């Protein structure tokens, strides 16, 4: 039974804990729950989980702080749960090292998809055998050769466009904040120039997407940033 991934859920709402425990157990995960931040940190240290689901509003401490303290010693994937009104906290938590987020109320299929992406990512980074080829529908991105093809035809990208696409594709499935994209692809000093990002995303979508107005690869994450979707 040790092959079952272990998920730790830290949330102060008993109903959410009950629902998540039932659903995730049924989906084949081993689930432990904590209703306070300190308790969660202790449990994470005692029995390191494969993934943590963390609510941002906890009675004893800020979820952002829990996230920061976990990151001091572990790279375990963290998925943030929050309400729509705390966008700022969400961005802070993601910049502090959280891997993904979900807005309450959420659909369970969405949560399961996020869990799968996060677990796959951590498995990859542990094995440190990151794929150099990313495939998204008809688009194939070769990170090593700096080559992008669509339906087998090469697509010409500018240097910045490729850098942006490469960063998004290397983190496929994960949400990336505007700030982190800007400071990786441009420069940390330009982390506030969201307008650059918007313009380049638009250009990339025009070159890659079938319908740039309804993008299927470079998805928008409202108020947060972008997520590159690949075939599961």
């Amino acid at each position, binding site marked *: 039974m040790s092959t079952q991934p272990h998920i730790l859920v830290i949330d102060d709402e008993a109903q959410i804990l009950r629902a998540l425990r039932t659903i995730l157990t049924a989906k084949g995960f081993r689930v432990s729950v904590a209703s306070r931040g300190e308790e969660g940190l202790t449990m994470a240290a005692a029995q390191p989980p494969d993934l943590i689901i963390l609510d941002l509003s906890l009675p004893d401490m800020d979820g952002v702080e829990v996230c920061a303290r976990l990151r001091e010693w572990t790279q375990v994937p963290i998925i943030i749960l929050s309400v729509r009104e705390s*966008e700022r906290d969400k961005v802070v938590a993601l910049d502090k090292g959280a891997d993904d987020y979900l807005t309450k109320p959420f659909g369970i299929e969405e949560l399961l998809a996020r869990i799968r992406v996060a677990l796959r990512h951590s498995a990859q980074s542990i094995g440190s055998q990151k794929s150099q080829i990313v495939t998204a529908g008809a688009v194939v991105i070769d990170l090593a050769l700096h080559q992008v093809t669509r339906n087998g035809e090469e697509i010409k990208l*500018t240097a910045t*466009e490729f850098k942006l696409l490469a960063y998004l594709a290397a983190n496929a499935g994960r949400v990336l904040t505007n700030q982190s994209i800007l400071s990786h692809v441009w420069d940390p000093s330009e982390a506030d120039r969201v*307008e650059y990002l918007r*313009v380049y995303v638009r250009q990339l979508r025009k070159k890659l997407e079938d319908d740039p107005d309804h993008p299927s690869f470079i998805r928008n994450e409202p108020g947060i940033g972008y997520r590159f979707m690949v075939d599961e």
Partner: protein
Amino acid sequence: MEFHPEVIIVSMTRPDPLGRFKKFPGMEYLLAIMVTSVFTLIFLPFRSAEGQDHTILSQLYLLPVVISSVLWGLGPGALAALLSFLALNYFFVPPYYTLLVHRTEDLLVLIVFLGVSITIGQLVGRVSKSLSDSHAREREAIHLYELTVHLAGLQDEQSIASAIAERTLIVLRARRVDVLVEAQGQVPAHHVRMEDRSRPGQVQNETPTYLCPLQSSRGLLGEIQVWREGVSLGAVEVRLIGTFASQGVTALERLRLSQAASRARLLEDSDRFKSSLLSSVSHELRTPLATIKAAVTSLRSETVAWDSEARSELLAAIEEETDHLNQLVGNLLNMSRIEAGALKPERSWNSLADIVTSAIERMRQQTGKHQLEVDVSGDLPLVPVDYFQIEQVFINLISNSSKYSPEGTKITILAQRVDGDRLQVTVSNQGPHVAEENLERIFDKFYRVTAADKVTGAGLGLSICKGIIEAHDGRIWAENLAQGFAFNFTLPLSAEGFPLNAGQEIVDE
């Protein structure tokens, strides 16, 4: 708490004709002596050797007496009378240049002159004094009137303090006047300083010449501090500044009372708002809850075996209603922010196409029975807006359109650039018209075109749209189309810190 007053320094330059003549005590008496001497010099050449009738001369000598009494008061008048008497005796009554008198009638004339001149001098002096007193009272009344008129229209404490300081400075010809109004509740303290810069030198930390408290029936509000050189304040001036102070207190109290009254009115309004919100919302919350409860209890019921189609129908209803509830909660939060004046857009450069896409994504359940046509190009310029607030506007407009237009009809969303400096968005549907006179009112809180129970909705959606669009310096309006109904709103392409075209001019390498 430390006292950090705001100091306003107003320099005044005004002509001060009297300021050049440095007054000193006793000057009036000196002037009386001079006038009498001048008259004596004028009379001397007309003196005849053999002596003359002193009656004319004695009447002429009343002139310096009257002049002195009128101009300089009773004391100098009396002095002039005495001097005239002596001069008359010394220069004009034989034997000349002595105070001796030979003739009895001369002595009589002199004594009568002295008596008459003193009496006339005193009478004239008294009349002139009471005249000047009444002039002073008139001036006082004018100053007071001016201050009252000035204070009447003022709506903030700073200007009231300034008005008092200015009047006091002018009326008292002071060097500097400070008016201090102490803080009260949330009203900050005020400190206004007026200085007459037309005179050299400045008042350094000296103690004020005069202090007058701003005393109201409910306590000390502040004080007036006056710095003036030389003469200390006379009784009239003290009385005047006292009246200024009480006028100032009245103005301050009037202001504070009216502010308290408007605060009370605001509270009352917000109270009324909250209770209508509560009644509207509780109804609104129960409807989806009732559906959810009914669906869930049906599914859990062991007496009925649901076929898979019925099951999925019930489950779809639950999901739809939870989305509905979530949307309602979002609107409530926005409404309370608008009411609290806390709806500040967190602007950043956004693509309207992205916003519309995610709004439609979130509305998929509710718009399933309508055909949605979207013409919002990603090539439109970026707009500096709050993503979530504008998304909420789209959600509310689409939700409203789907509620009020028949199933199966079209809902169209169109965005275009107008006049170069803004985007105009039109959300139109094929629903019924709204009477022209109600086109404005549909954006009011709790206003609904149809009777409350026919269509679900708290009547909040459109007023939230209006609040959000206006917070973005845009405009929102509704119009009847030939076939259908449309909402329009505009969004400026620039904002403070977001210059026009900043997001559009990025040249790729």
